[in-house]
């Protein structure tokens, strides 16, 4: 049974030498140092986790545990400002904090929520892609979700999930998604699992916008893809 390693900073190669070398020298300017003792200069929880955030290589997070800064001054800026300011990136995980079981943390990580926008809809929705096993399931779910918020033309609703692959004149919306590289792609080209990993958000684009006035090519699918790509360029 492999030990739970979620608490170790990735890539950290912790040796006691590295730990000792760095522990005395790092810290934010103007910070009160804890005096006495041979070992590390213990620092406040916030400061230490922000250091880790900045890619601090003394990532022996399991060793340097934070402490409240010495001193009676509880209005000290470093504590208050640290507490109030939401860090731009997520705070690095600190061993033992927050006190949540790993099982729980991992269960929540297993969700993949993406925003879904539909042209013309007054608000966006969020869906957990992990609960669907195929494009069909996803698109049916989206269809149902958005039916409630605005009217969809008759020929879009109905027959079956495959219609997303057909030429666009048969449906009102083209499903597109933004991938990890920031490009807008047509939903359906890559295997489902690959889509799960790369999809960051979804947009159901009005087909009228997507088709434009271009003549269809022999392969309907490449037509829509190229049009979508054109649209992408136009949008930029």
């Amino acid at each position: 049974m492999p030990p739970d390693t979620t608490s170790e900073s990735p890539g950290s190669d912790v040796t006691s030498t590295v730990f000792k070398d760095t522990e005395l020298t790092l810290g934010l300017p103007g910070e009160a140092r804890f005096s006495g003792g041979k070992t590390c200069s213990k620092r406040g929880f916030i400061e230490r986790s922000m250091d880790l955030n900045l890619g601090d290589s003394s990532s022996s997070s399991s060793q340097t545990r934070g402490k409240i800064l010495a001193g009676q001054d509880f209005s000290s800026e470093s504590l208050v400002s640290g507490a109030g300011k939401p860090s731009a990136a997520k705070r690095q995980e600190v061993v033992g904090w927050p006190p949540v079981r790993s099982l729980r943390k991992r269960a929540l990580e297993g969700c993949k929520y993406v925003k879904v926008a539909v042209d013309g809809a007054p608000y966006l929705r969020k869906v957990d892609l992990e609960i669907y096993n195929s494009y069909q399931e996803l698109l049916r779910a989206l269809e149902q979700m958005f039916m409630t918020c605005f009217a969809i033309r008759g020929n879009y609703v109905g027959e079956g999930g495959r219609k997303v692959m057909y030429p666009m004149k048969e449906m009102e919306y083209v499903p597109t998604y933004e991938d990890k590289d920031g490009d807008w792609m047509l939903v359906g080209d890559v295997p489902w699992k690959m889509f799960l990993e790369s999809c960051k958000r979804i947009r159901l684009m009005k087909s009228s916008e997507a088709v434009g006035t271009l003549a269809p090519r022999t392969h309907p699918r490449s037509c829509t893809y190229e049009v979508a790509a054109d649209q992408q360029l136009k949008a930029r």
Partner: protein
Amino acid sequence: MNYFPDEVLEHVFDFLTSHRDRNAVSLVCSLWYRVERFSRQRVFIGNCYAISPEKLIKRFPGLKSLTLKGKHHFADFNLVPYDWGGYVQPWIEALAKSRIGLEELRLKRMVVSDESLELLSRSFANFKALVLVSCEGFTTDGLAAIAANCRFLRELDLQENEIDDHSGHWLSCFPDSCTSLTSLNFACLKGEINSASLERLVARSPNLRSLRLNRSVPLETLQKILVQAPLLVDLGTGSYVHDPDSETYNKLKTTILTCKSIRNLSGFLEVDPRCLPAIFPICLNLTYLNLSYAAGIHGSELIKLIRRCAKLQRLWILDCIGDKGLEVVASTCNELQELRVFPSDPLGIGHDAVTEYGLVAISIGCPKLHSLLYFCQQMTNAALITVARNCPNFIRFRLCILDPTKPDAVTMQPLDDGFGAIVQSCKFLRRLSLTGLLTDQVFRYIGMYAEQLEMLSVAFAGNSDKGMLYVLNGCKKLRKLEIMDCPFGNGALLSDAGKYETMRSLWMSSCEITLSGCKTLAKMMPRLNVEIINEHDQMEICPEDDGQRVGKLYLYRTLVGPRKDAPEFVWNL
């Protein structure tokens, strides 16, 4: 008392159900001790290293039900290394060799191997119940052995264990003759199981009252199972995802209407909120609802669901419910006794989280609240004071501000007074966890007022040894004290060494205690095991250097001296 024959005494003792009462009774005189020990069937051992299996067997030959706890609570948060200890194997071996007719085994935070499970399954003809909570070290092969060999198995309850899943084959190992199951919980298993086997198992278990499925069990299977088990009281769904227009879903809606006995509902690890209406009809009967793994239910769907659960007594949810959602809980669930709000975004700072507003609303709407676990973004003294006034019945109060040294969000002051109000008002408080900016003052309050306090968890709090001293001197009933990252040193540790023999254990990590202090304590108190966990060779460089700070100290009282199974990195002083 000599006038009563032993049988009468035994009969009287039968009415004592709590371990503490029976323990107390056994101390009255040697006659009572003798009668009590022969008639005792259930034994609870809070620390498996406090006593040995041999002594247990010798004292309680009539033992039928054993509860054992292994690693310290902080093992849940990765502070205890995997191979620290807590093995159940020696216990099972000793019990197997003896004439003990073990029927129930409940383990928490122990290391359980497939070999142990196999031995267990073969050694006790009348074995009925296995409950494993937060254990690890075994695979589904071990479960297969239990299923195959325990002919009268009633209960197999796996809660939040780390289990290596080899396949769903284990479920098929229950023989056709096994019809005695009352409770089956495999929600924590990660792998697939054989749906047909599961359906057949349920079909031949007429006494099944509690069933918690894992993520892999599809909705179709759930529907078929519920048809076979309409008397279920406790249900944990598997994958609650389906096309709401399908026949399967419609069948489920009808089937659920027949499940009038369901009082506890959990699961929803995977959920399509459009399928939730199927459970609406049973919501009004629910007394326990656990949505703490249901990240897929939020916003208006979550509120819609909660509004139907007016009889809830225990609610576990994620903080994406928000303060507004908690207001709905407060207005709907007036019978609420226990609330747990878990973080849905443990590392980041989410906007959906809850604050002091939600807690105050709950305190107003739910006067019967006695147990709280609340992960939140911020807190204020004013809110805590209000909560203390509204809910004086707290037995367990655990507040976890995700940013652990955060002061009062409005006044920027420490939260001493807020927690002080809690301990002063809640005279029956047994368990307390503190976070936020806290000085020695909060410990002074705790020492003064928390007379019934048994367990205290502290992190990043206090200014000096005085803090810890207030607690050690004041809390007479203290059993477990766990401290991380507080400025408490040798002075506090050594001030009242005798106190630790009245407690189960003390944990101190990343504090100011040194090796010298720990060694001194160990020398003074031979009936304590004083263990230093020396991970990553922190202290290897200079083991004679007594001035070096101790990373992790875990000490506990014991009748059997230093344990023999300690790994290299655990030093018993």
